[in-house]
């Protein structure tokens, strides 16, 4: 099956986790500076799943509609990166980022801009780190805010096969005293995922050398 062919070996997964970890570390550092509060971040799982499965993974965890910041990337591997929050979180995030000095009206007005900026910080950190660690370069589009269900975000077409693959990074990020959490997902087609695997193998060989 396609999924098995594409699924990552344990070391490839470790390597990708570590690379994303570097990116998330940078993002967290930036986020801490923006929010000025304790931020907990984790990279508990990386999975290559179908778009359907990714939509289910999120809907299992989130009851409400979602807000996502989307950035497309292009290079040796191309695709789309999503930073996803429950919709109920988004204003809280805006409030956290803007330091709680704004009126509710101002928060609403600022929401789109603040979300774009936050998403840009986090997604950029992740994608730039990946490109850097894998010694390739990627170009990114400007961030865009989307709203809808998980199926809508993953563009699952009920009539279609829903067979596209998603590199699903389930990242919990929790901010103390703020009800904020989110996920990062990268949607890539099969050729892009195959390229990514090759680049990860190169990286592993570089780092581990004779120990493999």
């Amino acid at each position, binding site marked *: 099956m396609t999924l098995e062919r594409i699924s990552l070996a344990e070391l490839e997964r470790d390597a990708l986790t*570590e690379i994303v970890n570097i990116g*998330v*570390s*940078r993002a967290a550092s930036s986020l801490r500076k923006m929010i000025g509060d304790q931020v907990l971040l984790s990279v508990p799982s990386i999975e290559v799943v179908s778009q359907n499965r990714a939509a289910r993974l999120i809907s*299992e*965890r989130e009851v409400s509609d979602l807000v996502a910041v989307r950035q497309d990337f292009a290079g040796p591997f191309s695709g789309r990166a999503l930073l996803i929050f429950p919709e109920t979180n988004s204003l809280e995030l805006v409030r956290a980022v803007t330091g709680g000095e704004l009126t509710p009206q101002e928060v609403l007005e600022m929401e789109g801009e603040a979300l774009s900026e936050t998403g840009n910080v986090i997604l950029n950190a992740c994608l730039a780190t990946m490109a850097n660690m894998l010694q390739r370069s990627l170009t990114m589009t400007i961030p865009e805010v989307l709203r809808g269900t998980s199926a809508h975000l993953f563009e699952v077409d009920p009539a279609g096969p829903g067979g596209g693959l998603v590199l699903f990074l389930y990242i919990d990020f929790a901010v103390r005293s703020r009800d904020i959490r989110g996920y990062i997902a990268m949607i890539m087609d099969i050729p892009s995922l195959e390229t990514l695997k090759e680049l990860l193998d190169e990286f592993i060989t570089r*780092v581990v050398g004779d120990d493999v």
Partner: protein
Amino acid sequence: MMSDLPASYHSSIRADSIDPFLAAAGASGSWDWDILADRLYVDVHFAELYGISPEATANGLPTSAFFQAIHPEDRPRIRIAVAGILAGAELFSKEFRIVTRTGVTLWMHGRGQCHLSGEEKPVRFTGLLVDVTERRRAEERLRIAQTAGGIGTFEYVDGFATVSVSEEFCRVLGLHPTIVLPVQTVNGVLADGAALLVPEMRDGEVPSTLDAEFLITRQDDGSARWIARRGEIIREGAGYRLIGVIYDITSTKEQEAALRELNDTLESRVEQEVVIRQKAEEALRQVQKMEAVGQLTGGIAHDFNNLLMAIMSSLILLQKRLPADAAIDRLIDNAMQGAQRGAALTQRMLAFARRQDLVSERLEVPELVAGMIDLVERTLGPAWSLDVAFPDSLPPVLADANQLEMAILNLAVNARDAMPGGGIIRITGAHCDAEAADVGGLAQGSYIALSVIDTGEGMDEETLAKATEPFFTTKGVGKGTGLGLSMIHGFAKQLGGTFTLQSALGLGTRATLWLPIAQSAAQTAPPQLVSSEPRGASGPLKVLVVDDDGLILMNTAALLEDLGHVVIEANSGEMALEYLRRHGDIDILITDQAMPTMTGTQLADLATELRGDLPIILASGYGDIPAGSQHRIVKLGKPFTQAMLEHALLEALSVHSQH
């Protein structure tokens, strides 16, 4: 997890300046990786674990030494993680195995941080190496305890939107296994929103207890399950931490429910049993009541019979002795008719008490049926009609006319009840042999099969099998005694025949009485022969009459004396025996059956011992003469007329003369 690094790690660590407090606090070893100089500095504990002599570490080690004691299987993973740190990842937090110089494998938790230069370039990587072997084992035990026991753990710190869980926790709820879940997701499994599994962030209240049960909908298969939550609430400053477990208690709940169900049905089963018992007791009471009524009726009928006996005898004698007068004769006839109707009434009472002797007589069945058509049709009602059809020449049967009429009427009523909408009831007869009839329990011989046929509801096999059982009835309460068919069956058996039922649901029922054909005229011939003898031939007889009822005794004596006989009266068996001893010339003994201290049959046996040739007549209104009584004894039914008495005398003498 990533978090801000403890402040103590911002100071530089060199092998020669390892903080002794860190080691005392449980640190197994510490390192300082100088990224720019590409040298690794370790403390004595680190060196000891890695099997490096302290002297060799004095001036630092090549950075590759960091990996040398790491278990080969874990080494690539750690190399990748270190590569991440060297490239700018903030936190290093990995568990891996090291193999000590002595060959012991220990689990280590390496926890380190990357230090950045002013230009945000990584310059140093420092950290602590902690022996977590014990903890790993404890974790292993905990993990096995969780999976083996199906117990999921969780820890929730108030103020956060997520809760730390075990994989088993996720499995219990049917969620994708993970170690952190949004509180909202955990509470999303609840089937009702009455109570929350984990407090939501803005609840504000500290829960009082974690002990609770919840109905959930498992997220993977959608099944409804019961889970229990147990745990402790730990207060921390202004906030709190919840540490608890959840486990599935569905089967316990189901067992409880099953037990409850069992208890409930037990109650209703007991109730059913009690109802059945009450019905049985009711039936028994009914039988006992019938028995008691029968006893009472029989007793009354017996006494009544004796009174009628006295009345009828007196009337006969009165008529003889009074001068012929039409007016007087009419009065006496009236009195006689009244007494005879009373006698018929006592016969019915005795039949009810089942003490009537069956009077077997030759009966022409078609004649008997023809005689009761009016009665039957009136009993049935206008919606039902009879279709009576008999072949031309049917031999007579030997039966009791009253009983046979009752049986036919009973069957006709049953046939009517099987056709609630009305219809035709056929009564037919046929002459057939036992072999041809193929009916169980029928002795060899010829029979008349008398059938009552309806085209009604019919019976299923189960009902058919029970139909002749006493007290079985398909009729509503109060509509039937359930005794009809069992009495008919008993009657047919008593006659030496049988009773059969054929039925099919929806087609109707055929009820057949198999009555033995009367063998010949022989049984009725002897009395005719005797009675044809000249009356005077017997001459005046010396008759010993025994009855405990003075009235009857006097009447019987009067009847006999009127016939010209000499009578000796005795009011008990003992007295009669005394007379028999004293008077050797007594020609005949007439005794009542029902007497206190000595019955008629007992007296007959004792009298036979004294006088083997003594003719004996036993008078009784009951069907109570024991089966074993001497067959030479002539029976005389009460109440009897003078003619019947005379007939009995002749019969007794003739039986005697035949011996």
